[in-house]
């Protein structure tokens, strides 16, 4: 049946209600997995707690395997799903700036909202910072326009850009993820334990 709302199986009015419900589940899972504490988030970069790596890769894997199984069985049509557009240099430069922001601030927008919900003042300040960042971007937009608009390769998937069979890529990706989990466990044992 493919994505239900765009295909009209569920009327479009439900979209926002579903958004809230999904948001509640999203917030609950993020907070319960400990993503509301910035020190646990930063642990992935300093080796004392690889929760971010484990949750992130497991979620991506479960989602990708699920999407392709449902596509195979005819429940979901992958072509109708929203694929994040590929702006090559936009993604690289934006990613680098976000990486530094992640290490400096300890949050990403989703997790900072969870921390705000449980009363973390540094998270509130962080969200304020994000808004300022967006404000700066919008004011200096002409400066960022070439990167923002340029190098557009369309809403392209790995299958289109690298011509690989998605099933094989998912299989290799899952092996890489499991190897990463094993390594992160070994590293975590060796690194000095930090109580937060």
């Amino acid at each position, binding site marked *: 049946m493919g994505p239900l709302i765009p295909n009209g199986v569920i009327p479009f009015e439900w979209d926002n209600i579903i958004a809230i419900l999904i*948001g509640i589940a999203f917030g609950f*899972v993020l907070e319960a997995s400990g993503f509301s504490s910035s020190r646990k988030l930063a642990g992935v970069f300093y080796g004392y707690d690889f929760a971010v790596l484990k949750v992130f890769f497991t979620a991506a894997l479960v989602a990708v395997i699920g999407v392709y199984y449902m596509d195979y069985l005819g429940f979901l049509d992958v072509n109708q799903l929203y694929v994040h557009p590929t702006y090559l240099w936009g*993604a690289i430069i934006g990613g680098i*700036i976000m990486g530094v922001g992640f290490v400096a601030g300890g949050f990403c927008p989703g997790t900072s909202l969870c921390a705000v919900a449980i009363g973390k003042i540094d*998270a509130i300040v962080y969200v304020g910072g994000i808004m300022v960042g967006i404000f700066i971007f919008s004011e200096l937009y002409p400066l960022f326009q070439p990167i923002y608009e340029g190098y557009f390769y369309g809403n392209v998937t790995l299958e289109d850009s690298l011509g690989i069979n998605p099933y094989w890529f998912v299989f290799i990706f899952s092996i890489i993820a499991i190897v990463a989990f094993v390594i992160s466990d070994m590293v975590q044992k060796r690194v000095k334990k930090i109580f937060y």
Partner: protein
Amino acid sequence: MKKELKQKSKHIYWNPYYGGFLLGILILFTFYLTGRGLGASGAMKSSVVSIIESVAPTHAEESSYYSKFITEDESPMKNWLVFETLGVLIGAFISGGLSGRIGWRIQHSPKITSKRRLVFAVIGGVLFGLGAQIARGCTSGAALSGMAVLSTGGFITMLAIFGSAYATAYFFRKNWI
């Protein structure tokens, strides 16, 4: 004994694989229902746009960036991501409440003062806000939802975020370890 148990459970988090599994199922469910992934920084952009629009409407109209998101009939806040972000706040509050983690505080490593932590939080926020707009998505929107449909942009963004984070982790180590 109960208070002590409650105190201890403050730091009992789910097993990360379990959390990742549930998050994966949730993303799959979101794609199945709405055909789009999750997101977070989009909502902040909408709020900034609506603030600017209410504060300085003329400026908002002219500037090429704001005008993209201003539509006559609806305010920018009436957007899927804003509702989802509202849900995230509620969900996190419920989960925090269940395990007793609610309370005003600033979480920082014992070695640094809370003032320094706030300063770095602002710097981190500004950088993240800027980067999220340039890459048109944050870790949960571009990277996580992008990877779920194997989008090249999603992978590039994820690699760039984690790559640069690992590269510059050395400079901020005093904040965390």
